[in-house]
């Protein structure tokens, strides 16, 4: 699959909350069609804010992109409503899953298809597809979502997003609070979706080991700025990245300077 056509480009984005707190100062990266791109960084590095900017969800949280822009298939996302972005193929799985707790698993999935306003048959077909990727959800289809396990909720959230038949799936910390084996399972499914259906994926993760294992490329954020980008395989083998993200380095590098191998202990 040729990774040349740019699907999403984030260009020098700066963002604030409440016109006061600067959350991002200069984030730039791209996602090409058919790619899995990981957005790595510690807590508070700006991963979530970046993803919310991508889905134009910041205004709903009193946030604002003050500089730079984000283009999805050439469309400036700041000018589109989140619902329109979903229709044009960009959908996000929020941090913390955000399932509709008092709806059943199946109802949760169906809500994901509502935005497309497809017919009953179309929704049923999309449901079967989701169940094929996540057989667990079929077993639990009539259970209230709030009563299912964390892993099942994550699958529900991903399945719900898939119901809108996205081209770019954005995920915020899908591994959060889940057992390693479940995380493994979810990332494998994501990769299968990527390989078999050409779904492009942008995933923010604190768990850089897992993310770098499945991603094609990665961008590392630090204090609200993109500090390093590269092939996942390359980043995986760099000592500085390993040292910093495995917590062996006591001192994080300053923003905008590539992390030097010398920092490694």
């Amino acid at each position, binding site marked *: 699959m040729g990774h040349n056509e740019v699907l999403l480009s984030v260009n020098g984005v700066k963002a604030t909350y409440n016109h006061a707190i600067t959350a991002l100062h200069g984030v730039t990266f791209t996602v090409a069609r058919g790619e899995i791109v990981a957005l790595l960084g510690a807590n508070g590095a700006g991963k979530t804010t970046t993803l919310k900017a991508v889905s134009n969800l910041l205004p709903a949280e009193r946030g604002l992109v003050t500089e730079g822009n984000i283009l999805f298939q050439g469309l400036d996302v700041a000018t589109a409503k989140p619902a329109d972005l*979903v229709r044009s193929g960009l*959908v996000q799985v929020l941090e913390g899953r955000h399932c509709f*707790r008092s*709806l059943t698993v199946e*109802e949760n999935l*169906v*809500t994901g298809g509502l*935005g497309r306003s497809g017919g009953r048959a179309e929704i049923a077909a999309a449901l079967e597809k989701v169940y094929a990727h996540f057989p667990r959800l079929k077993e639990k289809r009539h259970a209230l979502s709030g009563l299912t396990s964390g892993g099942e909720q994550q699958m529900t959230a991903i399945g719900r997003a898939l119901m809108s038949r996205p081209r770019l799936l954005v995920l915020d910390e899908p591994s959060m609070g889940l057992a390693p084996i479940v995380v493994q399972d979810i990332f494998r499914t994501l990769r299968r979706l990527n390989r078999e259906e050409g779904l492009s994926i942008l995933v923010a993760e604190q768990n850089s080991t897992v993310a770098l294992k499945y991603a094609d490329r990665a961008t590392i954020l630090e204090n609200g700025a993109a500090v390093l980008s590269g092939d996942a395989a390359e980043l995986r083998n760099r000592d500085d990245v390993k040292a910093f993200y495995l917590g062996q380095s006591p001192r994080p590098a300053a923003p905008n300077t590539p992390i030097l191998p010398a920092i490694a202990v």
Partner: protein
Amino acid sequence: MSDFDWLFFIEVLVGGLLSGVMYSLVAIGFVLIYKTSGVLNFAQGAMLLFAALTFVSLTERGVPFALAFAITFAIMVVIGIAIERTVLRPLTNKPPITLFMATLGLSYVIEGAAQLIWGTQVHGLDLGIEDLPFDVGGVFISQFDIFAAVVAAGMVAALSAFFRYTRIGLGFRAVADDQFAALAIGLRLPWIWATVWAAAGLVALVAGLLWGARVGVQFSLSLIVLKALPVLVLGGFDSILGAIVGGLLIGATEKLAEVYIGEYFGGGIEGWFAYVVALAFLLVRPSGLFGQKLVERV
């Protein structure tokens, strides 16, 4: 207790329950909007008044019942959508108290508009149901109360079916559960809010007609919101079932208290006893009987 008059007790209880249905009807209007947008719409009472007044004014000018109902419903839908557009949407993400103040102000605007358009005189409203008591096994029950209860039950059933079986109903339940997630997966919140306001308008219309027929269409009708508050405290602000059960409880307690312990306070406790119950309840269960059913496993 051998001289306790059970028949009379039942009569009071049933009368109380039936009048409680009328409270539920008002409370449901609040619940619909609170559930989806987190706004305690204080203007619900004013909407109720406006609906009743519009309907009466139309029928007094010779418009037939069904047509007047349809026209009033259409007007209520337009008002609901206009409120959502012009008042609430610009205030999205503002603190709840700001929204509450906005709806409080709104209720005066609506009342003022009603006064301006339809005048201030009291209107009688005849729904064609006579308020005659009839006898069920020795217990006298008001015919009108039964009619009101049936209408309210039908309305609740229709609303429940709508929210359970239609797509927009599913969207409504999703938004009520998690507004941000609903936004993220591409639900069109403005559409859902508009539907909810339309539904609240319908509830206001039906409640307005029943209350109007009972106490006359006049400006104190908008104060019915004050009757709905204890019901909401008791049942929970975000539960339709809670509004129904809360209404029944408040209705029954009110009447029983008036009849059996009212004399110790010199009578007339019906007006405030509901608040005592609600306050006592707040101490025990602040989220109400059915409020915020927590379905979660972590």
